[in-house]
């Protein structure tokens, strides 16, 4: 930015001047300055020359015609094909084979919400993993084993889309499992970046609704359904238990089967149950959820037991994991016999689950007053392979440590009325957020501040969760002394940017174009400009109505302005 002896003549004024859009008084002011100051005259001339050069820029030749074909198909996939640079292109191509429902879900997941959701899940997974979740390496192994078994049983009638995607996802699960085993042996918390990313994906899948989880699995892997070897998308979920806290107070009573999951205390198994239940939700519409639930129940409970017991079992995690991985791929059944296939899969899985089942039974006998009910539920559901209902899924944020949530959730899932209309819900554990860092680029500024207002009890308190706007002032006048002044009332009400204060009354605006601004307080859609806080005490003492001055904030490029604490006796 060039300077001038007359500091009131800005480039913005000169730019408007050469376009003849400057108000008359300012136009005359600039004209006078041009005559009086050679520097100003040169600035105007150079700007005019720059504009002239731009006006003379040669016209660009078209590389091709952009006319639309007469038989244009106005679908998203057509759009995607036209643009190889659009990030959704490949995924949209896949969606052409799907129904509108799947495409809609897929687009939703690929959109900003899905991305932010995955990013949040990744952050949570990383934070909790570093916190010691690796101790559940064998839990992960058991999860994989159980889920693989249950998924294989459950999805013999699954359509090829899910099967194929699950096949592709199995490699991710295998990597996670192997890495978990390695981590267990090393007794370290090092998590490879690629593993973390996969786990983050798994977390997001685990807490999504049934259809969403399937759609996401289908979206993330672009595979050919015809070549599918079945591995269930459940493989995506086992990483979630790793992201849970490590303390497992086994002395906590198990919740009863009729206890709402929302009231159940928390434990690492809670996440396992959530993941498992979510997985069960995923496969339930397919027939044979009963065995899936049984495997999940065994998995969760036995994993808790072993995690608390000793570290010797970690030594065998890798071997067991390899065994599970090798047994994961099973050809799709050709006769369509769900029962036969289910029994076969059950026997395969039981070979590797024997220890887990024993541990679980011991655990249930020792700690669970509802073990009988749980086992009864398992047995009852084992015979109902034709069930196609969805497990009610309502996992809220657990607050304390329930070692038996997995069992409770499984038994409850089987005992409770089954309905497809139930929407699975999961609450992500709270994570301490890092301090807010405001990034300011060279061309914009930022504004922060805190607003307090007199409370009913007479003390100053934060203006919490209130809409605060930022209105840019357009009108500037030059007084007789040549001083630029803004009219605080002249802002475009339709172009006010809004943010919300936090519980402490803090507001933050970023990426603000340089200029003069006023703060706007919005109540029920009514905009009111905030003035400078007044010392009402003196005014009251003098019996004089306060006459606050306008609060105008000038934002400069690359600067962050902090208004400090703005205290108001009352707000407009």
């Amino acid at each position, binding site marked *: 930015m060039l300077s001038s002896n007359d500091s009131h003549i800005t480039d913005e004024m000169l730019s408007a001047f050469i376009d003849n859009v400057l108000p008359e008084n300012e136009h005359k002011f600039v004209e006078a300055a041009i005559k009086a100051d050679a520097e100003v005259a040169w600035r105007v001339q150079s700007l005019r*020359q720059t504009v002239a050069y731009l006006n003379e820029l040669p016209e*660009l030749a078209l590389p091709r*015609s*952009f006319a639309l074909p*007469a038989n244009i198909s106005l679908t998203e996939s057509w759009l995607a094909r036209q643009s190889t640079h659009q990030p959704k292109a490949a995924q949209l191509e896949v969606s052409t084979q799907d129904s509108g429902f799947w495409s809609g879900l897929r687009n939703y997941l690929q959109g900003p919400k899905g991305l932010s959701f995955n990013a949040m899940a990744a952050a949570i997974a990383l934070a909790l993993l570093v916190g010691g979740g690796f101790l559940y390496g064998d839990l992960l192994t058991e999860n994989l084993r159980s889920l693989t078994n249950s998924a294989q049983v459950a999805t013999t009638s699954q359509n090829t889309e899910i099967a194929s995607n699950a096949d592709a996802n199995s490699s991710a699960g295998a990597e996670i499992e192997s890495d978990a085993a390695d981590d267990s042996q090393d007794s370290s918390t090092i998590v490879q970046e690629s593993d973390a990313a996969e786990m983050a994906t798994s977390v997001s899948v685990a807490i999504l609704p049934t259809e969403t989880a399937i759609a996401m699995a289908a979206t993330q892997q672009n595979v050919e359904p015809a070549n599918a070897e079945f591995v269930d998308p459940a493989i995506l979920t086992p990483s979630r238990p790793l992201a849970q806290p490590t303390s497992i107070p086994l002395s906590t009573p198990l919740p009863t089967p009729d206890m709402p999951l929302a009231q159940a205390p928390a434990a690492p198994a809670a996440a396992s149950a959530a993941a498992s239940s979510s997985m069960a939700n995923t496969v339930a519409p397919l027939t044979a959820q009963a065995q899936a639930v049984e495997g999940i129940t065994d998995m969760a409970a036995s994993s808790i037991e072993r995690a608390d017991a000793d570290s010797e079992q970690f030594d065998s995690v890798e071997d067991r994991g390899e065994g599970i991985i090798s047994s994961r791929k099973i050809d799709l059944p050709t006769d369509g016999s769900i029962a036969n296939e289910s029994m076969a899969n059950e026997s395969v899985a039981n070979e590797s689950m024997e220890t887990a089942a024993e541990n679980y039974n011991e655990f249930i006998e020792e700690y669970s007053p509802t073990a009988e009910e749980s086992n009864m539920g398992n047995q009852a559901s084992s015979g109902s392979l034709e069930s196609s209902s969805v497990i009610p899924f309502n996992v809220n944020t657990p607050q304390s440590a329930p070692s038996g949530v997995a069992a409770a959730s499984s038994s409850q899932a089987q005992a409770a009325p089954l309905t497809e209309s139930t929407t699975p819900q999961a609450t992500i554990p709270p994570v301490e957020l890092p301090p807010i860092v405001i990034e300011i680029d060279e061309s914009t500024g930022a504004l922060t501040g805190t607003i307090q207002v007199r409370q009913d009890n007479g003390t100053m308190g934060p203006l919490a969760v209130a809409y605060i706007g930022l209105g840019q002032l357009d009108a500037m006048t030059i007084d007789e002394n040549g001083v630029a002044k803004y009219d605080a009332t002249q802002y475009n009400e339709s*172009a006010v940017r809004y943010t919300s204060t936090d519980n402490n009354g803090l507001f933050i605006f970023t990426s603000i174009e340089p200029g003069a601004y006023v703060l706007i307080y919005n109540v029920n859609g009514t905009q009111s400009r905030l003035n400078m806080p007044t010392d009402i005490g003196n005014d009251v003492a003098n019996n004089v109505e306060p006459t606050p001055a306008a609060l105008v904030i000038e934002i400069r490029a690359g600067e962050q302005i902090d208004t400090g604490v703005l205290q108001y006796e009352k707000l407009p």
Partner: protein
Amino acid sequence: MTEEELIDSAKSGDVDSFNQLIYTYERLAYSVAHRTLRNPDLAADAVQNGFVKAFRGLNGFRGGNFRAWLMRIVTNCCYDILRAEKRRPTESLDHLLSGVEHLPYLTDPQESPEQYTSRMELGNLIETGIGTLPADQRVVIVLRDVHGYTYQEIADITQDAMGTVKSRLSRARGGLRDYLQQHSELLPETYRHKDASL
């Protein structure tokens, strides 16, 4: 047919009518996209996607300035691509190719080789200078100073306040002027500032 008639016809699904509108504005759209994105392929994508989206959303056009409405869609496509490129920065390999298959500028058969070379050098310098500006400033300065849009049209296209448009335009002009000052050997004497420090 008038523009309004073409629009009405296109709203009923007549692609030919919409293509007539495209013929009118495609050069303008491509020019803005090219100078905004600094990449001919991305610009072509933005323009094509913008036209398709415009055709699909034509029923949402409630009258008024069709050119501004169309350019707003194309400009938004440019911003989408810029955001995508920012997330996934890539390096074009086009500059490694020998030979130029497509000249970005139209040629004037009446122009001498010297004039052509001089014009190209100055044009390239200005284009490079435009490329140094932030994207939002590039859009504004191209719309205003290259294509002659009014402030109000630019505000409609970019969906920014008038003050923001003015501010961006002034900073874009100032930035481009400063850039050209650094390469004043290609500029006329009158353009060079007496004080080299400025």
